[in-house]
């Protein structure tokens, strides 16, 4: 079947629409963030009220001791949102709701763009770097929306997730490759399996890295406010983030979710390499960096279980893992030549 160029250009229009809508969403999240001034005072004092929805058995009344041996530092209650006691002003909420609405609309455009691209070229829509970037951004957006369904109180952090997504949308534009069929090396069902699992893992790990960055800001804020310092760089941001213990846990869970997927994705790649190149592993630069990122995330999981390595150190390892993965995605594709020259950039 030939390329349907009409559909292909419709898919590109949808990409533009999705990018524009995400831009509006980012404006909305920024608005919510800017107007959401409350919570600061409550945060600086360690006494925290548990949110009813998460309060568990204690909500019925006065059980002595419940929560007194909680998870750590300033948060003694629900794993999420404890650091932010009250919702912001009405204005802030309105901005936030609009932002989520734009995110959903953008995600629909985005999903349609990816799906229609697939129909136009009659294959999976992740055969080159333009398409792959769009898929990673889509996974990250969907992961964010999924998080919102479970933990709507995190909405005001949308700026920190949707900013990187918006960046990916623009980057996809710079990698633009016109709709084309696959070269023989990519004509394999492993393309669907291997690349989709890697893209899913990367989208989720992107979210984890964003949460980890927030964790570092927040834990610094907590350390400083414990020492009585409430000013300084990031203090404004720090005061409005959830408790560091919650962020730490959320970062861990996202990695714990993505790591098996990433592991499977790398193994699928090895199986494909065996069929295409005659060996399952050859230390091609792409393979090497996939290995480095995998080992770093394994370190992260270890660090979380090693005395003296929890907290900030583990957080930095998480960011290193993300850096290795990002390096593999951009630098290895663009600068270093290897067998994986699927990017379509030359």
């Amino acid at each position, binding site marked *: 079947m030939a390329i349907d160029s009409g559909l292909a250009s419709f898919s590109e229009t949808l990409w533009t629409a999705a990018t524009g809508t995400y831009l509006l969403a980012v404006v909305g999240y920024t608005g919510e963030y800017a107007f959401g001034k409350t919570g600061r005072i409550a945060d600086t004092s360690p006494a925290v009220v548990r949110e009813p929805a998460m309060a568990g058995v204690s909500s019925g009344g006065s059980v002595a001791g419940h929560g007194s041996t909680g998870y750590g530092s300033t948060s003694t209650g629900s794993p999420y949102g404890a650091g932010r006691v009250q919702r912001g002003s009405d204005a802030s909420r309105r901005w936030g709701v609009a932002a989520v609405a734009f995110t959903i609309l953008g995600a629909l455009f985005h999903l349609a763009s990816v799906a229609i691209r697939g129909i136009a070229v009659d294959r999976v829509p992740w055969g080159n770097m333009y398409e792959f970037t769009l898929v990673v951004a889509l996974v990250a957006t969907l992961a964010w929306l999924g998080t919102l369904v479970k933990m709507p109180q995190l909405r005001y952090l949308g700026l920190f997730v949707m900013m990187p997504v918006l960046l990916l949308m623009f980057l996809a534009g710079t990698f633009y490759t016109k709709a084309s069929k696959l070269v*023989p090396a990519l004509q394999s069902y492993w393309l669907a399996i291997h690349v989709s699992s890697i893209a899913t893992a990367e989208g989720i790990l992107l979210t984890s890295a964003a949460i980890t960055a927030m964790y570092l800001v927040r834990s610094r804020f907590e350390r400083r406010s414990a020492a009585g310092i409430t000013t300084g760089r990031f203090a404004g941001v720090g005061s409005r983030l959830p408790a560091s213990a919650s962020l730490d846990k959320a970062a861990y869970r996202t990695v714990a979710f993505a790591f098996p997927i990433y592991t499977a994705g790398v193994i699928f790649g090895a199986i494909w390499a065996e*069929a295409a190149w005659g060996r399952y592993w050859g230390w091609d630069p792409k393979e090497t960096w996939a290995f480095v990122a995998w080992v770093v995330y394994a370190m992260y999981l270890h660090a979380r279980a090693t005395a003296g390595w929890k907290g900030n150190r583990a957080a930095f390892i998480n960011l290193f893992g993300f850096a290795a993965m990002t390096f593999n995605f951009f630098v290895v594709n663009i600068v270093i030549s290897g067998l994986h020259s699927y990017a379509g950039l030359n």
Partner: protein
Amino acid sequence: MSLLPRPVRTLWRRLTSMRTALVLLFLLALASVPGSLLPQRPLNPTKVDSYLATHGSWGRLLDRIGAFDVFGSIWFSAVYLLLFASLIGCLIPRISVYARALRNKPIKAPRHLDRLAENGELTSELPASEVAARVTRTLRPRWRTIARTEDSGAIAVSAEKGYSREAGNLIFHVSLLVALVLIAGGKLLSYQGSIVTTEGTGFCNRPLSYDAFHSGRWVSPGAIAPLCIDNLNSFTATYRADGSPAEFKADVTYSEGLDGAPRHDVITVNHPLRREGARVYLINHGFSPTVTVTRPGRAPITDTEAFLPADTFYTSEGAFKFAGKDVTANNDIGLSAIFAPTPLISKGVVTSIAPTVSKPVLAVLAYQGLLNPEGAPQSVYTLDPTQIATGELKRVAAKNLSMGQSMALPDGTVVKFTGYKEWATLQVSHDPTQTALLVAAILMVTGLLGSLTVRRRRVWVRITEQPGARTLVSVGGLARNDSGNFPAEFETIVASVQSSLHPGAQPPVASTAEKIGAGRN
């Protein structure tokens, strides 16, 4: 262990600690990085040579420390082996601890359940033993439980769940260990040979047949499967209208064993020929032009030579060599040529502008003289440049030939471009550990899923009869590892314990089990 001298034991404990594992993992990641940034000999020896040529003593230093073969270097192997030892040392005790934990009963209830992260209290009119029985029955299907009578007379039910987390973790690490062994074994037991095969020719799977052959140290000659690609019947490259490749396929006749019947197969890029003991891959392709050389007064000689593609449009370079009668005659003929499948000739320079074939041109530089007086091994793709430099091989004519055209050399020899064939690089690979490695990899992922999704948690219920009052039921819960939604889970546990204490319809408030602060219904 205790038999070993103390320093050895200390060292071993250090090596097998979590912290060492962390450091070793870091070293492993770090050691891999130069492998992707510097050219690597096993992947691309020519790039290494040009790096060495341009980087002087720095390059030689890198070479000496093995930076051009990182994954075969001593230090990489050292990290690998230390990690391996650490992993073994860490796993053996953990496996035995786990085996014991499986046999052991859930641990005793702590004294102060109300100090646990999750706790709640209920009361019931039922006697303690009946409450204990009902609590056990409620938890049994999913939890490992045991009821103990404490010194105070209270009954404490201990329940545990999530053993498969540790099982998953152990399965993951053991499979990883096995995978490491298999990968190392694969290195020693595998071989790989590749050969440029022009249509109409074939080869057999023997080390000496190949243009390039690599084998592990433990490959015995008997392990090399008796497989012959008798003939490459045809190689076909198909291109789309926009010039991008659509399909490459090699049509082959092969046979196995000494007198195996000839069979037929089509090898494409993602579909190798898989036979017992060997796999045949299509790796690369190109063109093999044919010339006919007729010396005055002699029978014509026809030769087809594989040319190496120099760009993506298959502008290809190669050479034909026709030795003369004897060395003293000094009349060898050498043709250095460029083949362009779809030529563009500008100012006499031929390049190809498409990978498809359309009025191909062979640009020939003809030489006469001595090709190889010493009979030393030479590249088949070029004439020996030193012979040209010394003037022992002299250029006598040059012409761009279309198919069917010919050129005459000064001595009357006629060189005719008569046609072309296509060639394919076929690669034969064998690694006996692959299937086992795949199984280990699947177990790794399975173990990971168990380990990262299951959480260990414990619940205790202490039932105390109070003289003259209702039976007190205190519940406490603790989640090890990251507890996920344990608070919510605990809440449902308390709720189900509560409802087990008054079977039947929902009782009015404060009938059989009065709520003191637990449950939210």
